[in-house]
């Protein structure tokens, strides 16, 4: 019994059985999402308490400086938390952009300021449509009820907008091909490349950033399981 290998094998065999790996992995993913939601709720309550202190401080300040400047009022939203990501501490996960309160009343107005309007919205769509959709996404998914609060970095919101328009521009490209409209196809390709480059420029992480190149979208559209782009 002194042989190390034999003893090691016996030790390993003496282990109580582990839970089923596949089931544990699936439930772990679900639990991970619920932990994030629950923890954000807790953080939201903590932030709410902090905000009360800020309001009290602000009221005191208002007694001294009675009229805030118009510029200050125009450039600040309740959605802006005043906290920022740390790309040095969290490389590949965060950039230095601000954490945005997804449950703020003026989130829609704030997201509207993030639209990259130098890039055209897809035909038949407007940037307002996308900013509204992104701003309503979290509350519509069941967030912002009770203690469910959430924050996300400004860059993530920008990436969501780019991802949404990228798909719709992809459909424009598909339709232009079906219609043999070469100028529409060229425009769709030009904007898709611009959208993809912008997403890769601002994303803090490498790899998939949620946007499509014209080639990747066309390749997906030829997949028999592709269900998008119905006219």
């Amino acid at each position, binding site marked *: 019994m002194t042989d190390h290998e034999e003893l090691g094998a016996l030790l390993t065999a003496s282990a109580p059985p582990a839970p089923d790996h596949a089931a*544990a992995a699936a439930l772990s993913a679900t639990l991970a999402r619920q932990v994030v939601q629950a923890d954000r709720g807790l953080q939201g309550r903590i932030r709410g308490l902090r905000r009360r202190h800020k309001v009290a401080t602000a009221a005191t300040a208002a007694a001294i400086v009675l009229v805030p400047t118009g510029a200050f009022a125009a450039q600040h939203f309740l959605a802006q938390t005043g906290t920022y990501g740390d790309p040095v501490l969290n490389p590949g996960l965060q950039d230095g952009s601000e954490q945005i309160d997804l449950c703020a009343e003026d989130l829609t107005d704030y997201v509207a300021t993030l639209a990259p309007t130098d890039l055209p919205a897809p035909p038949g769509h407007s940037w307002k449509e996308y900013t509204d959709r992104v701003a309503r996404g979290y509350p519509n998914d069941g967030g912002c009820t009770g203690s469910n609060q959430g924050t996300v970095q400004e860059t993530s919101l920008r990436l969501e907008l780019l991802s949404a328009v990228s798909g719709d521009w992809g459909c424009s490209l598909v339709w232009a091909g079906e219609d043999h409209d070469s100028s529409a196809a060229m425009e769709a390709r030009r904007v898709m490349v611009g959208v993809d480059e912008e997403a890769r420029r601002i994303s803090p*992480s490498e790899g998939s950033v949620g946007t499509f190149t014209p080639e990747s979208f066309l390749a997906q559209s030829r997949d028999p399981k592709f269900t998008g782009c119905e006219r």
Partner: protein
Amino acid sequence: MTPAERRFEALATGCGPRVLAYLARRTTPREDAADVYQEVLTTTWRKVHHAPAPDDEALAWMLAIARRTLANHRRSAGRRLAATDRLRHELLASPPAREGIGGDDRLDEVRSALGSLGEDDREVLLLTYWEGLTGDQVAAVVGAGGAATRKRIQRARERLAAALETGGAVPVPSGATSAAAPRG
């Protein structure tokens, strides 16, 4: 989903099952491991930016969190999430421990001999042979140096072999672990 959420979910699905197995082997009743696991995931989420990138290091990092959480766990410490309830049912449905149900006599001897070891010896052996960790991973979990840990594993194995040869092992009562303390 933010990059931090993606990283956290990757940790939960990649390392989570092994962390859950670690906990399930050290809690009685076994399903209490689900509650401890919820605490482990909460801590992991709050520290996700400190998680090491290589998978083997990330596993040891999460097991170190699990080890500390297990040592400090108290029942009903917080709200149980829905998925934790499902995990409890999954653990209840999975096969029970083989101890004391007429298994291999030699395995029973090994389990008894393990019970006769000191807590530190038992811990490094179980991390090595039950959880399948390397010496460096064990060192990261217990918070010690790599060389010292490898030496500790070797000595613990020698003490276990001696205990088996002399038959002087102290029997381990069935289900002797506690939900409030790590086994070793």
